[in-house]
């Protein structure tokens, strides 16, 4: 990335939300990811944003580790809304083609079937066994259209096409 300027969306977020952060660590205390992966630290992430090191935050794999449990969102005494900021960061990273494969697979599935997961054979068998109704196909054309017009990008390869 050769950008120097912070993207407008991010700048606004930092100005309106992140700047209130007083580094109390409420977000880290109950963060499930921080428990499993000590390198992940939402407080330090906010600090970096305040200091303007946004490129580092954006390109780091770390932002993709958040489980989106919103505990930090609720715990924050200053209303920084950390999990929502992580979403914004991930959106910006996706625009720059940095989304991990695991995330993109669901989206591809979505475009193909309208579901983010596949119907497995075992599940099909147990559906019949349990007497559940057939699963009806989704009009994927609609979904594809919506994804296209909102500028959804799958990955860098797609862009080249």
């Amino acid at each position, binding site marked *: 990335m050769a950008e120097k300027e912070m993207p407008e969306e991010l700048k606004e977020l930092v100005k309106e939300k992140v700047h209130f952060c007083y580094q109390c660590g409420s977000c880290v*205390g109950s963060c499930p990811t921080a428990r499993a992966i000590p390198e992940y630290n939402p407080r330090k992430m906010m600090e970096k944003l305040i200091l303007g090191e946004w490129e580092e935050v954006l390109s780091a794999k770390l932002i993709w580790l958040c489980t989106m449990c919103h505990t930090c969102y609720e715990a924050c*005494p200053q209303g920084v809304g950390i999990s929502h900021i992580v979403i914004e960061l991930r959106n910006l990273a996706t625009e720059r083609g940095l989304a991990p494969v695991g995330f993109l697979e669901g989206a591809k599935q979505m475009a193909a079937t309208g579901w983010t997961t596949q119907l497995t054979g075992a599940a099909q068998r147990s559906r019949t066994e349990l007497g559940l109704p057939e699963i009806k196909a989704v009009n994927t054309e609609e979904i594809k259209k919506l994804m296209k017009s909102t500028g959804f990008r799958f990955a860098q390869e797609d862009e080249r096409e």
Partner: protein
Amino acid sequence: MDEEPRIGIYVCHCGLNIAAVVDCDKVAKEAAKLPNVVVSKDNRYMCADPGQELIKQDIKEHKLNRVIVASCSPRMHEPTFRKCVESAGLNPFLFEMANIRELCSWCHIHYPEEANEKAFDLVKMATAKARYLNPLEVIKVPVTRTALVIGGGVAGIHAALDLADMGFKVYLVERSPSIGGKMAQLDKTFPTLDCSICILGPKMVDVARHPNIELISYAEVKHVEGYIGNFKVTVVKKPRFVIEKECNGCGECANVCPVEVPNEFDENLGFRKAIYVPFPQAVPMKFTIDREACIDCYKCIEACKEQGRDAINFDMKEEEIQLDIGTIIVACGYDLYDASKVKAYGYGLYDNVFTALELERMINASGPTQGNVIRFSDRRTPKSVCFITCVGSRDEKTNIYCSGFCCMYTLKNALLLREHYPNVEVNVLFMDLRAPFKGYEEFYRRAREEGILFLRGRPTEIYEHPKTKNLVISMENLSTGEPMDLETEMVILSSAAVPTTGAEKLARILTVSRDASGFFMEAHPKLKPIDAATDGIFFCGAAQGPKDIPYSVSQGSAAASRSGRIMAQGEWEIEPIVAFVDAEKCRNTKVKCGICVTKCPYGAITAEEGKAALVNTAKCHGCGTCVADCPSNAITQRHFTDAQIIAQIHAALEEKPEEKVIGFLCNWCSYGAADLAGTSRFEYPSDIRVIRVMCSGRIDRDFVLEAFKKGAGMVMVSGCRFGDCHYISGNYNAEKRIKPLFAMLPRFGISPERLRLEWFSAAEATFYVKLNKEMSETLKKLGVERIRAENEKAKPFLERMLQQSGG
């Protein structure tokens, strides 16, 4: 006044506070060209001696008969300059102020061009008003040499004792059965660890013994009317069911009472009987029956009779006491934030999570555990204790402010615990430790010296171990940056101070304002920290904001001296901005009218049949509601006459009227908010031209119409929130008067969004800023052309209406 006005204008730089944005020299030069202006100068500091000397000299030299200073808010320096012109022989009411600092330079820092334009307009408006100023004589009212202190905590006790020692009669009204307040509940005090009740107890006894103090306990203030020096206060004394004169506090009645209920004084950790004194050192030492808990067995009556007395009376009724009061001191204190609202910390859910005040009662030798700190679950002394600070403070979900003294009482509790139990592990979890006053940092150092562990970090949540009932605190260790779980046997939450229950009601009774956090709001944050905006009312202690004991005591004494200052003089000058009736115009001589009588919130107007209405100047508070509502324009408010206000409107709208907003702001709330926006340096669009009136009740419908007739882009009418009006009902009357305009204006062709009717308190600077931004948006959206066209279309209608009402 018949002589030709000779006006002197002085534009103040206020150092760089004004001069950095406004070109003062240019404003002064331009102002010199205005009619009747004899001199126009700029100066670095008008309020300093040289500045004042300059005014005095010019008055003599140029025979000035009007003086205008363009500087800060009139709420700040108007009295200063009035004195200045008075000493030069000019009537002080021939002075007028233009507020170009709070309303201009401070809030348009990045737009000097617009700021310059606005500053000049403000000066022009002041000049226009000045031409119509009249000399007025101040009114002197007698002052009753009796003070009322509301609240018998440590601040109230000191205020009462000081005033009583000065020789004034003091009524001390306390809500609960005993005085002493929160301090009586404490075990020790910081930073010297003296026993709290040992130092407070003698003061409480002094209150009871002092010949000048009349203690009215178990009572509340119900109603207040009147004004400085002459308040009429109604106090309701709740029935104790024990005759105070008869009871000698022997306690035999409590011994035979079968009902045990939790004792509020012990934070509901211990019990008391249904007939009780809250604590052994209570003042007055009189029993009270809690009828909520009493089962009417009358055992206490028997016991009392056995002692040869007959102090218990189950037929006692509520009693109203009327008091004549000169000054009022509000010392109603604080409450602790209800920690159970911070659900993540589990107070009320987990047995071994306590609040600091609960610990305070436990560690107190006369508390429910005789000084033993024990866990709820197993009554064992904990091996480790964690203190958590900032519970209910510094958090946008609870209270945004810092509660100030929590850090210090946490330190004190930690040290006390360490003193009692040297082997207990004591941890303090904190974000920032604030120890700013004398001896406090040393106290913090001492706590570290004693081996108390300080861990930086704000706990996210607490869970209880299902078996051991220990508590596990999830937090980030900020020194390592890693999340951790801290297992501890007991948690103490340091709750923030919040306004006491009933503060809102009391504020309404006294018609004083409260700040955004709900604490009572002082007249000026720096220079009048004790005074209410209403003359004759003072605040002290935690009623005004969270405070520790030394600060509360000094405020108590300060409030005593501030109110003693008034009572010592025996009489007090009040501003002569009262209403008066022109007997010739008053139509009550011909028809039965009396509208003014019904509108006056103070009953200051009388209208006998066939005679003109009459204003009792001593009773008049000067809101101006009667003036605006008089159908024959017979009433005038001195210093805020129709002619003066209309002159201001005209002056403001001389140039580019379509781009301007005429804002009518009431002196107490909306003007206060505008001032606060300035002092806070909030930036907002510069379209507004502010006209200050004492109350929104003064704002005549004609003023709005006149402004539109002169081509104003927008008009804003604003006042205090409902229930907060400084003159009881001015804003209700204003609403009744202005609201119909929203339906009327479209019929003339004026878009209704060009009129705004807004209510906000003096603390809501952010609201004022938002409002200005919105109005600026509206102006832009409509555009000059459309506004001009609308005004053109409406002009004939407006003129006709104004003629009809004789405006």
